[in-house]
């Protein structure tokens, strides 16, 4: 074996690559089982629990955490915060990959995934909330693809097409905000149909508002969190503008997240008052609700505020990760933990190990795709031929 080949092999066999490789192999095996033997062989889903973690985590959490795309592009292109421009491409990429793999994950959960385009072709179900979510996600994925497509076009040298798509930036941003407003809230509205199944502390007529407002928080926090990880892993890929804008962006988005969290806390408390559910706070579910309300809404609100006041970037970055965890807990509470709460424990849903495997597999694919793109395309730096073209 030549010395170069030995060095190449060594550089490929990193701990991350080995772990990712094992997860991908396990994921492919479970994928084969799922699509050859059906949902029954790979999941613990039932008539009582038709939606498991492939919807609760892969879809609801995936869509919420992909909100960084519309939040950042709206901040920069609609609210004129050009000083955060370097964050747009990484945020759009995260959003695009998030939505793309939401659709991939959805194929696992659907009994007959090849029928996914049916509602758009046959036009049935236009009064259904799920139809609205499906249409919005399909359209927004297209918008994100177009917004992201300028990066691979710059990489591949398609200058004319790139300039044509670049001219559509403002229109695409407006589309993105409108479509996100619609489907982020509609994902919450899906649960309005199940007032007897969802615990009263989580069920509220304001669920669409909760989902939309918390998606803004998720987007802001995810941009800080993802930026922190990118700075550690791909610092050498960043240009000076990206490095210089990172700290002001962390402070600015931290301040915005703090303010939105304060509003979100208020409307959550109003939700309890409107339903007159104060007495339920003294129960087991009430304790868990208070953990979410105080630990993952009020606490990060204060931590963000303290971080912004003290200009403590470490505190803001920690709070961003904490808030992302809070959003994950919230979506799992609504879709799984507080759902079917009245059923006996024997009938309650707990995911099959294959469901966990697929969810980890999907997250790993997102990370691998992100790494593949960021190491090749102008995401964390401006392409020399297109500098100052924004």
């Amino acid at each position: 074996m030549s010395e170069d080949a030995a060095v190449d092999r060594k550089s490929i066999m990193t701990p991350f690559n080995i772990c990712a490789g094992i997860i991908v192999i396990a994921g492919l095996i479970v994928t084969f089982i799922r699509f050859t033997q059906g949902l029954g062989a790979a999941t613990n889903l039932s008539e009582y629990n038709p939606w498991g973690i492939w919807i609760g985590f892969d879809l609801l959490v995936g869509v919420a955490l992909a909100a960084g795309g519309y939040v950042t592009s709206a901040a920069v292109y609609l609210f004129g915060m050009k000083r955060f421009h370097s964050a747009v491409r990484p945020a759009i990429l995260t959003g695009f990959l998030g939505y793309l793999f939401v659709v991939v994950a959805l194929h696992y959960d659907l009994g007959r995934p090849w029928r996914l385009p049916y509602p758009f072709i046959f036009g049935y179900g236009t009064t259904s909330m799920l139809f609205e979510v499906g249409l919005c996600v399909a359209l927004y994925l297209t918008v994100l693809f177009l917004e992201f497509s300028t990066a691979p076009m710059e990489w591949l040298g398609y200058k004319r097409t790139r300039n044509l798509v670049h001219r559509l930036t403002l229109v695409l941003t407006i589309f993105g905000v409108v479509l996100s407003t619609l489907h982020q809230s509609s994902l919450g509205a899906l649960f309005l149909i199940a007032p007897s199944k969802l615990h009263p502390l989580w069920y509220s007529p304001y669920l669409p508002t909760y989902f939309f407002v918390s998606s803004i928080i998720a987007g802001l926090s995810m941009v800080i969190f993802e930026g922190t990880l990118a700075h550690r892993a791909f610092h050498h890929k960043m240009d000076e503008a990206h490095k210089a804008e990172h700290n002001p962006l962390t402070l600015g988005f931290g301040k915005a997240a703090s303010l939105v969290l304060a509003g979100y806390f208020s409307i959550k408390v109003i939700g309890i008052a409107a339903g007159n559910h104060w007495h339920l706070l003294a129960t087991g579910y009430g304790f868990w609700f208070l953990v979410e309300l105080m630990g993952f809404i009020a606490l990060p609100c204060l931590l963000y505020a303290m971080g912004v006041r003290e200009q403590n970037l470490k505190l803001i970055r920690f709070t961003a990760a904490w808030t992302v965890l809070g959003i994950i807990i919230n979506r799992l509470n609504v879709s799984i933990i507080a759902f079917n709460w009245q059923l006996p424990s024997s009938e309650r849903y707990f995911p099959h190990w294959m469901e966990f495997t697929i969810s980890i597999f999907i997250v790993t694919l997102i990370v691998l795709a992100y790494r593949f793109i960021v190491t090749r395309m102008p995401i964390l730096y401006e392409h020399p031929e297109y500098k100052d073209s924004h």
Partner: protein
Amino acid sequence: MNNIIYTLHDFLLHTESIVFIIMGISLLSMVGFWLFLTARDEDKNIQ
């Protein structure tokens, strides 16, 4: 026995009253929170 809710009207009167009080407190608190959040921005601008 004044606390018993008999009708939908009773229920809405009770809950909406509390909601409006909380909304008032929240709006006033948001002003205070905004001042707390941005209190040191002016110091930074002066420097």
